């Protein structure tokens, strides 16, 4: 993408979201994995290196409430068929909102240091918090 010359792009201050050879229909009902993204779409880029912490998802406690899905600024909570599937680590910036809004006890998403192995994180998962009266 970088290093293209002045003669190698569409004229104007212009970018196309999808493969120019594909007639996109029903974009709003086609999930990311089925879209012919162009190389100019930021979907194909990664901001993984922004993180110093990452959210780890623990399926065991998740109730598929979808709070994490809707409040994730970076479309990094993957939800399919009303079920939480996982975290998109290419797009997650590690903001931690998903953890904050998760209502389960213990939470189904928790922040761990970026280098943490996911299985280790699950093994370290905290117990249910007793509510103080």
């Amino acid at each position, binding site marked *: *993408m*970088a290093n*293209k010359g002045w003669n190698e792009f569409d004229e104007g*201050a212009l*970018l*196309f*979201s*999808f493969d120019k050879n594909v007639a996109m229909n029903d*974009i*709003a*009902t*086609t*999930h*990311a994995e089925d*879209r012919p993204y162009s*190389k*100019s*779409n*930021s*979907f*194909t*880029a*990664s*901001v993984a290196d*922004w993180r110093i912490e990452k959210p780890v998802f623990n399926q065991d406690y998740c109730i*598929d*409430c*979808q*709070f994490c*899905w*809707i*409040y*994730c*600024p*970076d*479309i*990094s909570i993957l*939800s*399919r*068929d*009303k079920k939480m599937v996982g975290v*998109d680590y*290419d*797009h*997650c*910036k*590690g*903001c*931690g*909102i998903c*953890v*904050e*809004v998760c209502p389960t006890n213990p939470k189904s998403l928790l*922040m761990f240091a970026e280098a943490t192995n996911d299985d280790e994180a699950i093994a370290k998962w905290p117990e249910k918090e007793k509510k103080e009266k």
Partner: protein
Amino acid sequence: MSEIKKIKNLKEFSTSADRFEGANLLCPGCAHSIIVREVLNATNDDLVLSAATGCLEVCTAVYPYTSWDASWIHIGFENSATAVTGAEAMYKALKRKGRLLQPDRNPKFVAFGGDGATYDIGFQWLSGAFERGHDFMYVALDNEVYANTGGQSSGSTPIGASTTTAPAGRVSYGEKRLKKDLVGIMAAHGAPYVAQVAPNKWKDMTKKIQTGLKTEGPVFINAMSACTTEWKFDPADTIAVSDLATDSLVFPLYEIINGRELNITYRPKNIISVRDYMGAQGRFKHLFKPENEYIIDEWQKRVDAEWERLQRREEARV
């Protein structure tokens, strides 16, 4: 007339396929993103979007990447409203002339702009577009400051906030001017629908967006956008701070139909104090000094008075 997307509950809503992409340059925890997602996911109609120069534009359309999966235009700082209404005019013309490429679509025209672009430099453009009655929606992303350029005051900056052009200092408590009531001003244009929304109340927001999109004519939506960088709170707390904003009634959620019928759409179970709202943000830190605390008290009085006024208007239907 296109069908309105059914959003019974959040689980159903979560089946949406976002038309806004990640790996953009917005700050971690940015509320703009959450708002844009809720707005775009509220409909399955084709979209023509515009954005003013500002955080949203600068972070989602810097060559060689775009984060938009719908047609989108950025011209400059003032003219987001005019850009999208120019496209709306072209749509009307081509429809009349029978030259639409896909004549069976019902596109919606939505302009985005920050508070700087909307309240200040682009106000005339917004006003003109509304006065002309174009069929479009303008969503103001209100983070109460010129965030993209480092936090200068805008017409939306509330009294007492510390900004880089109105900083708190030894002899100043920060911003000295009251925030402009732009929702009221746009209602006074005779717009068929205006509303204030917040991303933490997703159901309220998507309902209003859907109402706005099916309303013919110009629609103004003021979306509270809690800015982790400029309001100075931890990125993980964006929704929590937004909750404080709506529950303290600093950002009341309401709609006005045809400039007259005001409906309050969210009544907090427990109204929290303005003090607690401010306490969560670094931009108000200096107001907790003893010599400045009177400003917090004045704020509380103003918020209470405004809440009272909204309730009276709601009753009176004027």
